[in-house]
Structure formats: structure tokens, C-alpha cells
């Protein structure tokens, strides 16, 4: 048995890379992160018919191999450092010339590669005929037409990959001529690099020289660290050529290089590789759809409708499975409380573990439905249209049309998560727009806030729940955008960055792709729930249980109980005796919770939290919510179920709140507003810090958000009371 073969998938975004990855690896996938950065690293297993095994790595989609974005750096570093046995370059056959631009860069790097011509059916429909054999002969790499969706052509593709891996040929970089000036500079620089042995263990001299000329900041930085003298020499040549080109032709080295790459491609494609049957400007089905969906008047209306539809879909269809899960955990709690003896263990299992897990898992169906909807929008190509239509608006707030992705993933369509949202902000190039997005995405209604919002709206605004939830989403957008503008005018002042983006053709999402997409994100949520939140749930249970009441107080309650029982013997009926005893139990539970660590913190906070109308129980829940927003509901639940002393009789939290005299719609609304905007959860704060490269911004987001939320919630509560809605 030979070693496992490594195959990397590289290609433009929207070329069908992920579809091919799913087709090849099916469910045998592993999602991780590249070290140091938060770009997703997807790897999966593939077994050849001959029994050999391969690891398939899905590189992030890129248009180029310069260091324009983190994705490009990750893809390039992976290829150079990990040296995969084979690279499969997936190209969109209906848009081949642009797609082959990345291929030429891969060829220049010299990796052993195969070109997969994906979506040949679309190309055929568009009247494009491709001669794969001819292209293969000209580029000197195998070219295989495939349909990633159905898997057609993939056996041949993988057969070629295996053959190439077995050959194990050394890397063979392609040399393209870039015209006299650049070629001369390249030669001089390459010589200089070879002589000095400048980073030659990782890169070939010509490739390094090329990157210097292209103004590649990552490579130049590495070079400066590696050998400042050679770096200075190279920089000097680059400066000379740049000045010359600018004087004579008013152009830049990187422009010349790109032009010649395209020139090379054009010359290849012109040799009877590609023929167009129709006029190239012919309107495709996708363009006709766009005439409606991005229409000046209809477009925005349809967009609003689509987003509203997603809401209805999520809330309506997830209701039933949510109820099932709640029933299941209720049943589990009853069974367990019957089996276990009274004491701390029982209390921990029921109030800590089961309530905690139940509260979190109960929202899994909701999150699944929401992610399914988002996956449809993403995979169909509609999300890019949303960015296109929204850019003009976003720019007003000092953001970028691409910010919309980060906002939507974070919960702009409620139910996202700020953690991937913060990561999605990485596609933004400008540090300022990115930071502004990073710091404001957490204002969105993420999936973890939904339980709180859903609980409170269902309890206090049951007649207009869907409408209110929609309004709350609009409010989140309003606040996030305003905050972004404020940041861009103050701490993050500066210029805006390029908005060059592809509008991929509309496609029917594959069901399999949707399922994998949905499952991946849901699983991330469950994993978070299963680990962090379970631990926090138990921790909070402990904080709410210890230290217990002092002996003297326990004796006081026991004595009261005895008195009531004794005096009840003759006169009163059994029912009223039971009531009296229950009242004592509640009083005892109440005072022991107040006595606990959490109760002390919550009570101490009441000195300020009376302003937005929160009592100590809410305060405890909000403190817990900093660890993870999911915990808010479970903590409230634990606080109230502990208060009732009898875990077997724990009615739903909604009923408890509805009955509690402290609660009314104004308090609920103030809490909703506070939960929406206060400090992001700990995981998000960590991500913000990591993405922005400084803990300063993480701390900033905690203070900024909490201060803002406190102000707004106080305004709602005091305003509502003054207007007399608190009744």
C-alpha cells in the first residue's frame, strides 16, 4: 500500500469547486481552520477504485495567486509549503478565459495539475464549443470535461490525478514572456536571487522575481525579513522598471504582467480551442432573470419579499420539531427526577444539564431551517445580487457592498451567528471598512439571541410575533449601520476600497449541497452547545447553588414548616396546608438563590439595572449571556425553576414569566433591546480580537456595545413607563 495521495482543489469562486468537493468526498469531510487565520480548511477522504486513498483539500476560492486577500495567501502558502501531489484546477467552461487566468498562475508556479472543465453543459447551451484535447496539448496538462453536480467525468478526472501522482514529476514552472522591459528585469533579478540563495528553498527565483514586480506585499515582507540586502537590491530594480514603464507607457509592471498573461491565454484559446456559435453578448437565461430581480423598482421590492419569506419559512415550519424537542427534554427531566434521590447531583443534572441542553438543542430545528434558507440564497447566486443592490446604501455608512454578507451571516436575516459573520468580513480588503463591519455585525440578531427574542415575543406579544420579529431585524440593521457610520467618522476615518465583484449566473442549488451546507453550520452550533454551553450551564448552576444558606436560616425555615404543620393539624384542610408549605419552600429557594454567588452579583447590579427595569434574576441571566447568548434563556429558566423548588413541576418558562408580576411588555421590550445590542458573546469577542489583530478592539466592542445597549434599554423602559404601557 502506498502513502495517501494529497489532492488540492483550486479555482475561482463560483466555478463549482465546492460542488466537486462534495461529489468526491460525500459525507467524509472534515472542516477545520488554517493555522493562524480563520479561513476554513476543508479536507475529505476519497478512495480510488484501485483501493488507493487520497485526501482532498478544498482550497479557498480565488481569482488569482497574488496576496490580495487572506484566501489567496492561504491558497498560495498551502501549495508552496504543503506541496500537494496533484492540484485539480476547476474552471467554469462557460467563462473559460477569465477562469484560466488563475490556471496560468498555477502553471507559472509549476504545480503538477489537471484542469477540470466544469459546467460544460452550460457552455454548450451558450453555444460554446471547447476542444479539451487541443487545450491540453497547448497547456501541456491534462484537461478533463466534467459535470461536478452529477459527477459525470469525475472517474476520468480522478484516474488522471492518480496517474499524475504516481509519476511524481518535479515541479515544472511555465515561463511566459512579459515583453522586453519586464523580461530583462526578471532575468536580472532571478540571477541576483540565485546567487544569494534568497528564499530559494521555498520558491523558484523567477517566480520570486515576478512577485516582486507584481508588488506582492506578503512576499516582499518575507524577503525583507530573510535578507534585507537582497531585498533592497530587488526593490531597486523594481523601482527602476516601474519608473521606466510609467514614463514611456504610463503603465505599471503588474499591469504589463497581467496583460501578457491574458495575451498568452488569448493566443492559446485562439488556436481552435474555443468557438462561439452565438454572439458573445447574447442574453442568457440568467441575464433575463436579472432584468427582473435587479430591476430598479422591482428589485428592492422582491428582495424585501424574499427576506420576509425566509422569516415565515423559518418560524412556521420549525415550530413543530421545536415542540417535539421541548417535550422530549421535559420527559427526560421527569424520568430522571423519579430515578435519582434528592440532592445536589439531581439538582445539577436537571437544572444544569438537562435544562441547559434542552434550551439549546430546542432551537436546533429553527437554526437548521434558517441555514437551509440562507444556503438556497447563497448557492443560487441571489446573495451576490443583494450585495450589488445594497452597495450604494452601504457606502453611505462607510461600508462595502460585501459587508452585507457579513451582516447577513451574522443574523441580518435573523438566525445567523456573529462568529462566522466576523470571519466573513475577511473578504473586505480595507482595514477600516473591515473593522467597521467586524465591530458592528454583532448587533445583528444571531441564532443565539433568537431564543430570547422568540421567548419574550411569544410570551408578551403573541398576536404579532412575526411582525415584531421582523421589526426587530430592521432595528438591528438600523443600529448596526448607524454605529458603523459613527465608527467610520470617528475612530475609523478614511478612504473606501474597491468593489469589484462577480455576479455568478443563477443556478438551481443542488439538494445535496444545501444539506451539507445546512448540516455543517448546524453541527457547528450543536458542537458549541455540547461543549462550551454545557460547561457554562453547569458553572452557572454551581454559582446559583453555592454558597448555600447558612445553618441559622435553614433552621428558621424548618421551624416555620413545623409550626404550620402543627397548627394545621386540627383546623385547616389538607389543601391549604400544602399551599402554605409551598409558599415557605418558594421563600426558602428565593433566599438561597439570593444568597448564592450569582444572586449576590445580580443583586449588586440592581443598583444600576433598575434604570432599564431588570431585576436580579435577569441580571444573572445577562451575565451568563456574555459567555454565550444561548445561556440567557436557560439561566432564566434555571433561576425560575430553582425558585419554585420542585423541578418536577417546572411549567414552561413562558408561563412563569407571564404569571410573574414583575414582567410586562415594557420590561420585555427593554430586555429584548438590551440583549440585541449588549456585549457580543465571548467567542465573538475572541474572534473580533483575532481578526482585527488586537485585543483592544475586542475590549472596545464589549464596552461600546454594553454602554449603548444600556442607554437604549433605559430609554425604552423609562419611556414606556412614562407613557403608561407598563400596566
Amino acid at each position: 500500500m502506498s502513502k495517501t495521495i494529497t489532492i488540492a482543489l483550486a479555482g475561482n469562486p463560483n466555478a463549482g469547486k465546492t460542488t466537486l468537493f462534495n461529489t468526491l468526498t460525500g459525507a467524509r469531510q472534515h472542516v477545520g481552520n488554517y493555522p493562524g487565520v480563520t479561513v476554513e480548511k476543508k479536507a475529505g477522504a476519497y478512495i480510488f477504485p484501485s483501493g488507493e486513498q487520497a485526501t482532498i483539500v478544498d482550497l479557498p476560492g480565488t481569482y488569482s495567486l497574488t496576496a490580495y486577500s487572506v484566501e489567496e495567501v492561504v491558497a498560495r502558502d498551502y501549495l508552496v509549503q504543503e506541496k500537494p501531489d496533484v492540484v485539480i484546477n476547476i474552471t467554469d467552461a462557460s467563462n473559460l478565459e477569465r477562469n484560466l487566468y488563475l490556471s496560468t498562475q498555477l502553471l507559472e508556479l509549476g504545480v503538477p495539475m489537471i484542469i477540470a472543465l466544469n459546467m460544460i453543459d452550460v457552455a454548450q447551451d451558450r453555444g460554446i464549443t471547447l476542444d479539451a484535447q487541443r487545450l491540453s496539448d497547448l497547456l501541456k496538462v491534462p484537461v478533463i470535461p466534467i459535470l461536478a453536480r452529477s459527477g459525470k467525468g469525475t472517474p476520468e478526472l480522478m484516474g488522471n490525478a492518480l496517474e499524475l501522482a504516481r509519476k511524481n514529476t518535479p515541479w515544472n514552472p511555465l515561463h511566459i514572456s512579459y515583453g522586453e522591459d519586464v523580461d530583462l528585469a526578471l532575468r536580472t533579478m532571478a540571477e541576483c536571487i540565485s546567487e544569494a540563495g534568497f528564499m530559494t528553498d521555498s520558491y523558484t527565483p523567477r517566480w520570486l522575481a515576478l512577485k516582486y514586480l507584481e508588488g506582492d506585499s506578503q512576499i516582499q515582507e518575507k524577503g525583507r525579513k530573510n535578507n534585507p540586502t537582497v531585498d533592497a537590491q530587488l526593490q531597486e530594480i523594481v523601482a527602476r522598471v516601474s519608473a521606466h514603464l510609467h514614463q514611456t507607457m504610463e503603465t505599471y509592471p503588474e499591469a504589463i504582467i497581467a496583460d501578457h498573461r491574458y495575451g498568452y491565454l488569448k493566443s492559446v484559446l485562439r488556436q481552435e480551442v474555443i468557438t462561439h456559435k452565438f454572439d458573445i453578448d447574447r442574453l442568457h437565461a440568467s441575464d433575463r432573470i436579472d432584468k427582473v430581480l435587479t430591476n430598479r423598482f422591482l428589485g428592492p421590492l422582491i428582495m424585501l419579499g424574499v427576506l420576509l419569506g425566509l422569516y415565515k419559512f423559518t418560524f412556521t415550519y420549525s415550530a413543530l420539531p421545536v415542540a417535539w424537542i421541548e417535550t422530549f427534554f421535559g420527559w427526560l427531566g421527569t424520568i430522571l427526577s423519579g430515578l435519582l434521590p434528592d440532592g445536589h447531583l439531581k439538582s445539577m443534572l436537571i437544572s444544569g444539564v438537562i435544562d441547559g441542553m434542552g434550551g439549546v438543542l430546542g432551537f436546533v430545528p429553527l437554526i437548521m431551517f434558517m441555514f437551509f434558507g440562507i444556503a438556497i440564497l447563497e448557492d443560487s447566486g441571489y446573495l451576490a445580487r443583494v450585495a450589488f443592490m445594497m452597495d450604494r446604501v452601504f457606502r453611505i455608512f462607510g461600508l462595502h457592498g460585501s459587508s452585507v454578507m457579513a451582516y447577513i451571516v451574522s443574523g441580518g436575516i435573523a438566525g445567523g451567528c456573529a462568529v462566522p459573520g466576523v470571519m466573513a468580513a475577511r473578504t473586505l480588503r480595507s482595514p477600516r471598512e473591515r473593522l467597521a463591519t467586524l465591530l458592528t455585525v454583532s448587533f445583528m440578531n444571531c441564532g443565539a439571541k433568537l431564543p430570547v427574542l422568540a421567548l419574550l415575543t411569544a410570551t408578551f406579544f403573541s398576536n404579532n410575533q412575526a411582525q415584531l420579529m421582523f421589526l426587530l431585524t430592521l432595528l438591528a440593521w438600523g443600529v448596526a449601520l448607524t454605529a458603523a457610520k459613527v465608527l467610520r467618522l470617528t475612530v475609523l476615518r478614511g478612504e473606501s476600497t474597491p468593489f469589484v465583484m462577480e455576479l455568478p449566473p443563477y443556478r438551481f442549488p443542488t439538494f445535496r449541497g444545501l444539506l451539507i451546507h445546512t448540516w455543517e453550520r448546524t453541527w457547528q452550533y450543536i458542537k458549541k452547545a455540547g461543549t462550551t454551553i454545557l460547561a457554562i450551564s453547569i458553572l452557572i448552576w454551581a454559582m446559583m447553588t453555592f454558597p448555600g444558606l447558612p445553618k441559622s436560616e435553614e433552621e428558621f425555615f424548618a421551624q416555620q414548616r413545623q409550626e404550620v404543620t402543627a397548627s394545621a393539624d386540627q383546623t385547616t384542610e389538607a389543601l391549604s396546608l400544602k399551599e402554605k408549605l409551598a409558599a415557605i419552600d418558594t421563600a426558602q429557594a428565593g433566599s438561597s438563590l439570593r444568597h448564592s454567588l450569582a444572586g449576590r452579583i445580580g443583586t449588586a447590579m440592581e443598583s444600576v439595572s433598575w434604570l432599564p427595569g431588570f431585576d436580579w434574576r435577569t441580571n444573572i441571566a445577562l451575565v451568563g449571556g456574555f459567555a454565550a447568548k444561548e445561556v440567557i434563556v436557560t439561566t432564566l429558566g434555571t433561576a425560575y425553576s430553582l425558585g419554585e423548588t420542585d423541578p418536577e413541576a417546572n411549567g414552561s418558562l413562558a408561563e412563569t414569566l407571564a404569571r410573574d408580576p414583575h414582567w410586562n411588555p415594557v420590561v420585555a421590550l427593554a430586555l429584548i433591546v438590551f440583549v440585541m445590542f449588549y456585549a457580543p458573546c465571548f467567542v465573538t469577542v475572541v474572534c473580533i480580537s483575532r481578526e482585527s489583530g488586537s485585543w483592544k478592539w475586542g475590549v472596545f466592542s464589549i464596552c461600546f456595545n454594553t454602554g449603548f445597549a444600556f442607554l437604549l434599554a433605559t430609554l425604552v423602559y423609562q419611556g414606556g413607563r412614562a407613557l403608561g404601557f407598563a400596566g
Partner: protein
Amino acid sequence: MPTILLREMQKDQSGTITAVKVGGELGRRIRDMGIVPGTRITIMGRAPLYDPVAIRIMGGTLTLRNSEADYIEVEPA
């Protein structure tokens, strides 16, 4: 033939790019996406607020802001 800026082009108008007069990151990004001299483009439409603009190039559709389109010179067909 006179050249005009991409911003000045009307919907459905076609032309050939003659120059991309910008370097740095924006320039690189523009070229990565296939916007290079000698390439034919057609204006597909504009966003509801007239900005950004959608163009057809090399069989795909790209969007860019008017302020970015100002660097691109086109010879109208």
C-alpha cells in the same frame, strides 16, 4: 476612434477596453477579474441607485462602482 470612460457608457452599449489607468490593489483586482485592454465589454445594467454598474466581460458578469469605472477607458463599438 475616440475613447470614453466606462462611467459614461449607456446600458446595453458595447465597446473594447483601451486602457486601465490604475495600479496598486484596485488595479490588480480589476485585472484579476479580466478587465484588461483589448477585451470587449457590454453594460448589462445599473443597480437601483445607478451605482454600481454591471458589465458583461469574457462571458461573465462583473460589478464595479462608478468611481472605479472612471479608471477604465473604452472605445465604443
